[in-house]
């Protein structure tokens, strides 16, 4: 396990973060309780847990989209105080600008970083080619399938070259086949770029397949129940999904998640 302590090795450092919110006409809810988590630089980390465990909230806190109430979150660029271009994000529902074409979406992201003209154009084309959208540069998002929209969103985020890639159930809205292909492609992109990735999912096999390390989160209040290190993402084995060791790990992690799901049910029944 890599040391998370040294400054250079920091990808994301979360210290004692607690987050509460008050729903309209409801009692205050503690979404996250005293979360501490270190994600080393260049690691692919999965946040795994049942729905309502606050894993997306934690991701949005890292992104700086919602303010940190208690505790602190640091990256190599310092304390997180708001959104920043060193932290790129990919959302479940793509969040492409629907009024812009695929290429205009990527170019917009590049323009925010001061890149314009033919240099930006070449760079945009490079990432569009990389996610296999060559020929769809002039298409509007509404004209593309879900998988293609997510590829465009990934190209847009990668084009700005963020240090940290935040992914909020990015394949959750896709059909099973497309999801599988997108997982393979993401792994290929990650191996080539070795960005720090924080990947939110409730799909156990997806987490085990993609991640270096997995945080299993408990349901409300969200806590990190257990951290698991894996290395299946570094094995160049096309049959990895049938590898007994992989299957056992998925089963083991699933048991942990199931315990949390059951606990949530019991909690609801008691309430």
């Amino acid at each position: 396990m890599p040391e998370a302590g040294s400054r250079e090795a920091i990808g994301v450092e979360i210290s004692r973060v607690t987050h509460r919110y008050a729903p309209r006409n409801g009692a205050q809810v503690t979404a996250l309780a005293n979360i501490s988590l270190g994600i080393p630089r260049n690691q692919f980390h999965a946040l795994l847990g049942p729905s309502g465990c606050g894993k997306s909230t934690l991701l949005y806190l890292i992104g700086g989209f919602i303010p940190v109430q208690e505790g602190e979150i640091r990256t190599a660029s310092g304390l997180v105080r708001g959104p920043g271009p060193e932290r790129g994000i990919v959302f479940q529902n793509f969040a492409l600008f629907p009024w812009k074409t695929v290429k205009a979406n990527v170019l917009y992201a590049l323009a925010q970083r001061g890149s314009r003209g033919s240099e930006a154009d070449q760079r945009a084309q490079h990432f569009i080619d990389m996610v296999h959208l060559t020929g769809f540069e002039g298409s509007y998002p509404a004209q593309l399938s879900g998988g293609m929209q997510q590829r465009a969103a990934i190209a847009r985020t990668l084009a700005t070259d963020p240090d940290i890639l935040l992914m909020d159930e990015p394949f959750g809205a896709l059909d099973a086949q497309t999801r599988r292909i997108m997982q393979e492609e993401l792994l290929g992109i990650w191996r080539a770029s070795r960005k720090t990735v924080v990947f939110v999912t409730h799909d156990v096999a997806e987490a085990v397949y993609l991640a270096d390390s997995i945080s299993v989160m408990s349901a409300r209040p969200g806590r990190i129940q257990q951290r698991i290190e894996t290395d299946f993402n570094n094995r160049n084995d096309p049959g990895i999904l049938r590898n007994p060791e992989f299957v056992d790990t998925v089963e083991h992690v699933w048991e942990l998640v199931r315990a949390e799901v059951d606990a949530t049910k019991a909690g609801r029944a008691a309430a």
Partner: protein
Amino acid sequence: MRVASRILPVLLVLLLWEGSTRLGFVSRAALPPFTVVMQALAGLVADGSLWANAAKSVPRSLVGFAAALVVGTLLGGGMALSRPFRTLVNPLVQVLYPLPKSALIPLLLVWFGLGDTSKSVLVFLGCLLPVVLSTFNGIAGVNEVLVWSARSMGASRAAVLWDVLLPAASPQILTGVRTAIAFMFLLMVSSELVIATNGLGYMIGALGDRGAYPAMFAVILVVSALGFAADAGFQAMSAHWLRWRE
């Protein structure tokens, strides 16, 4: 085929109009035949009165409409973006919304006189609320992940307003603008009917008072055609701007 299916109902109505008046089913005093109305229209075009009055009505209405677009977008956007501003403005909007704007005509006469200003102000007030409400609802309804995306790319808050919020809200804003166009014609004519010495609405009233019904119908047809053309043109422009939608 599509063009034919649109024109056919209009032709049928015109035929029915002409036939029923010519055959005496409808009194000519109540409804002059279409062809007679067209002759009257030719007369109004020839003596220049139609053009002269349209040249009064249209500019002063457009002034009120344009002011409503600018002020309405600002008010609606401000309400969507600032809670204190919304608290301040919302009661006024709620009170003004159900008020029939034509009820203000006598008051505006006292305040702004017989000239262009009273009509421009009335059109402004009538067009304002649809724009305010559609802009407010449009911007307030923008999915926040679009804003977050832009912010995470490095866009400033001000840039997000122009680059994300306005285009994302544009389908709803344009719907409000379309309603405002209809209100513009409505209030243009009704204000000129009540307080004016010129304009298309004034013509309708004055010709009616004189018993010149074919000419009066001709002006009514002209106003309808103007409204139809404005709406159709605006719809075509909207479709072009919103071509990114499915």
